[in-house]
């Protein structure tokens, strides 16, 4: 990888949710960088904080959740901005325009009362990236064509219920692309879809990314999707980063015991497997997360230090980071 320009730098992010049951420490001291033009994956199991992290990038954290500390530096065309310090009004300039989202459930993302053409146009009109509604509608049809929807002129006048799940997700992607964002965040964009449709949507994202030079942040729990789509991977576990690295390194030379275990727990359809290696135990409760390394109660290599102290993030080889005492020298 030659010179890489950071697009977003997240530094020591902490997000807590203040619930009646107690403080949920959803994100604990997470730092990472998104580089321009790359596809970065956030992968992890339920409750690991992948969605919360992605929403924090445009400060979409609603009470009882709060960004407790940390910085999110966005290298905008106007210079570096700390997203955490922005007001709602300033954020609106960025959200849906420079940083856009594609959510998991396309059915819920679209308003049943408006045509899809209207909904795509609306985003552009709101952000004043077009002169008028007429131009917006023309652009909307072009976007539908780009996302490979057949008969875009006719489909632009369709309501969401008239479209299949795959088509709806294409419309949602059109909305995401409408203002030519710098960063597109796709949160489990194919989890609600059948495999054959999933393959088509992933193909579309890959194509659009290459054509438009987009930066893509992809959130998924599916190791198959990671292998297929990503340049770099961040493995999250219980609100902390376990490992960061280039995709091939991560799959062929995983460092963190959690990454290793996760890869061995996925049944590979192309191979006959005699036995899956399950990870014992369950994901911890984040109101009272385990002290030290949050993975230690399930880790086969846990040492004394793991129970007491949080492991630092270490660069074991170029661009491959791990947060684990097995690789850290103490002191």
């Amino acid at each position, binding site marked *: 990888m030659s010179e890489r320009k950071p697009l977003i730098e997240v530094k020591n992010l902490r997000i807590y949710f203040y619930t009646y049951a107690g403080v949920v420490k959803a994100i604990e001291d997470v730092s990472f960088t998104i580089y321009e033009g790359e596809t970065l994956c956030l992968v992890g*199991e*339920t409750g690991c904080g992948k969605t919360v992290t992605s929403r924090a990038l445009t400060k979409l954290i609603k009470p009882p959740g709060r960004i407790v500390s940390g910085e999110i530096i966005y290298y905008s065309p106007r210079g570096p901005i700390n997203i955490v310090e922005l007001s709602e009004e300033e954020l609106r300039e960025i959200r849906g325009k420079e940083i856009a989202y594609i959510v998991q459930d396309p059915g819920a993302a679209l308003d049943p009362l408006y045509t899809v053409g209207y909904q795509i146009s609306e985003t552009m009109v709101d952000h004043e990236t077009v002169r008028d509604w007429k131009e917006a509608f023309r652009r909307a049809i072009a976007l539908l064509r780009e996302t490979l929807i057949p008969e875009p002129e006719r489909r632009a006048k369709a309501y969401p219920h008239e479209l*299949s*799940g*795959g*088509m709806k997700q294409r419309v949602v992607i059109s909305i995401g692309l409408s203002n030519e964002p710098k960063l597109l965040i796709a949160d489990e964009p194919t989890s609600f879809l*059948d*495999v*054959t*449709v*999933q*393959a*088509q949507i*992933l*193909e579309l994202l890959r194509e659009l990314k290459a054509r438009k030079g987009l930066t893509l942040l992809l959130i998924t*729990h*599916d*190791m*198959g*999707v*990671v*292998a*297929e*789509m990503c340049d770099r991977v961040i493995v999250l576990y219980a609100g902390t980063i376990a490992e960061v690295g280039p*995709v*091939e390194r991560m*799959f062929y030379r995983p460092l963190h015991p959690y990454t290793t*275990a*996760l*890869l061995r*727990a*996925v*049944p*590979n*359809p*192309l191979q*006959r*497997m005699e*036995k*899956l*290696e*399950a*990870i*014992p135990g*369950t*994901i911890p409760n984040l109101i009272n997360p385990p002290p030290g390394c949050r993975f230690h109660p399930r880790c086969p290599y846990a040492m004394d230090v793991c129970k007491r102290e949080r492991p630092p993030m270490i660069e074991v080889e170029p661009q491959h980071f791990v947060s684990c005492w097995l690789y850290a020298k103490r002191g």
Partner: protein
Amino acid sequence: MTSMGNALVSVRNLRKYFPVGGVLFTKAWVKAVDGVSFDIYEGETLGLVGESGCGKTTTGKLILRLLEPTDGEVYFEGKNVFKLRGKELREFRRKANIVFQDPYTSLDPRMTVFDIVMEPLRVHGIRVEDPEQFVVKLLYEVGLNETHLYRYPHEFSGGQRQRIAIARVLALRPKFIVLDEPTSNLDVSVQAQILNMLKELQKRYGLTYLFISHNLGVVRYMSDRIAVMYLGKIVEMGPADEVFENPLHPYTRMLLASIPVPDPKISRSRRRTKITGEPPSPINPPPGCRFHPRCPHAKNVCEKEEPPLIEYSKNHFVACWLYAKR
């Protein structure tokens, strides 16, 4: 069909049509299952795969007679289950059971684990000497223990709830279990635990499984044989390795080409089969072969006539005009 040991379950020409627009004002029929035949042999796992709406769950429910069929028969231990009555039906219900997909809705939130696991015995009027001891033993079988005995479902994680659901099924010492997407709502680390446990229980008790799933990796891991369904029909069936390594039906090939493989070198170097279209609605399925509108090899005959399920190689069946002679 060729014999491979004893068929515990035989499905013959099974059909289930659901009315659209209510029973009285039926406008159309959803042909959820439309002429399906297969055997499940004792001690094996038959995997049933397909995308949403292909009829795999309906097939599972019909086999257990949780639904009445529109047409066709299911034989369990040689008896037609749709003709069973009284004592024989109760006996069937004891021997054949189901584990559902969602462990959050399949357990009564107001019952303790003890009551949940004991309920099937109460229903069947089976007495055990020491109920508590009996339930504890079952809980150990599924990786839980006596401390869980008097707790309620909400105190458990998804994986643990699925263990409770499995303990409840095991309580009746069944022979046959339909596993309907038993791990789809679970995280991979927990999924692996449950799948391994199901395999172990199968060995220990000589259980026979019908494993229903849309996840091809999971199906391959669990199954001895696999049946692929598309819009209410079986399009291909054969030994698991055979179906995955030498898929015959264009739909099976498309499915296999669609799955993201957890191996970046393989997934990026794979030849990309063009994947087109979406599963159509089962209300008005296409005539002829139901896959023809999406099939890259569709010929004239495919639009007109339904291909029969033929045995292409030993124990490997396919319903496709590429292989069948008219």
